[in-house]
C-alpha cells in the first residue's frame, strides 16, 4: 500500500503549489494530501516553515514610535538649521551694512571734492 502511495505521490513542486493555493491546476491533489500521510506531513512541515519565518519577522514593538520620533526630530533639525542660517545672514547684514555705508560715503566725498 505504502509502495503504491509513493508511486502516485505528487512532486514537491506540486505540493508547494498546493501550499500557495494553486489548487485548480490539480483538483485531485487535495484528496491525495488528505489520504496520504507522507504528503500531508510534507505540507504540514512547509506550513510550519512559513509560520516559523513569519514569527521571526515580527518587528520590534516600539518600531513605529521610534520612526515617528526620528521623523519629528529630523523636522526639528531642519527648522533649527533654517533658523540658524537666517540668523547668520541677518548677522552678516548688520555687520556689513555700516562698512558698506562708510565706503559709499568715502566714494561720495571724493566725487564731491573733484
Amino acid at each position, binding site marked *: 500500500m505504502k509502495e503504491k502511495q509513493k508511486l502516485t505521490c505528487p512532486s*514537491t*513542486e506540486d505540493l*508547494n*503549489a498546493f*501550499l*500557495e*493555493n494553486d*489548487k485548480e491546476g490539480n483538483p485531485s491533489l*487535495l484528496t491525495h*494530501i*488528505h489520504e496520504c500521510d507522507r504528503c*500531508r506531513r*510534507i*505540507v*504540514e*512541515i*512547509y*506550513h*510550519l*516553515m*512559513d*509560520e*516559523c*519565518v*513569519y*514569527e*521571526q*519577522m515580527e*518587528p*520590534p514593538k516600539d*518600531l*513605529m514610535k*521610534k*520612526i*515617528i520620533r*526620528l*521623523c*519629528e526630530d*529630523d*523636522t526639528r533639525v531642519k527648522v533649527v538649521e533654517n533658523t540658524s542660517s537666517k540668523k547668520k545672514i541677518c548677522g552678516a547684514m548688520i555687520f556689513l551694512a555700516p562698512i558698506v555705508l562708510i565706503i559709499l560715503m568715502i566714494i561720495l566725498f571724493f566725487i564731491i571734492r573733484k
Partner: protein
Amino acid sequence: MDEEQDLKEKTDAELIQLFVSGSSVAFEVLVARHHRRAYQIAYGILNSIEDAEEVAQDAFIRIHRALPGFRGDAEFTTWMYRIVQNLARNKYRWNKVRGSQLNVSIDSPYENDDDANRKMDLPDRKSSPSEEVSTAEMKKMMSEELEKLPEHYRQVLMLRNVDNLSYEMIAELLDCKLGTIKSRISRAREELRQRLERL
C-alpha cells in the same frame, strides 16, 4: 482620536495629500500602516533585527523628507519598497565588505497586489500538549537550519512571508524572474525540509 479613526479609512494618496497640507497625524497613520512591511522586507534581505530596524527607520526618514515632492506617479507602496530595497541592498553590501556592525548614513546616495493567500485547507487538527512541544522544538530547529541555508534560499523564504508581498514584488526586490522566484521558493522549502529530516 476621531480624526485618527477617520484617517485610518483614507487611502495612501489621501493621507499624503493631508500630510502635505500640514497634518502630521496623517503621516503617523501612514507609518502605522506600512512600517511592518518595511521592516520585514529589510529583515528578509539582511537577516538581522538591528539592521532591519535601522533600514526601516532610515527609509521613513527619507520618505518624510521627500513626501512633499511625491508626485504620485507610482503607488506609495511601490515607492516605499524601492527605498527600503535600496537601503537594504546598500547595507547588505556594506556589511559584506566591512562587517555588520558599521552603519550606512541615511544621507548616503542610492545605488541604484497580488495578495498571496497562504492559508491552507487542511483538516483542523487540534494539537495535544506534547504535539505543541514538538511543534515548538521543530520551529526552533527550523530557525537554526534556516540560518544555515544558502543566502538566495533564505531570502526568498523570508520575503515570501512578508505581509501581502506579491511574487512580482519579490522578483523585483531580488532582481529575478517570476518563474525563478516560484521555483526557488519550492526548492528552498524542500532543502530546509530535507535538512530537518537529516537531524
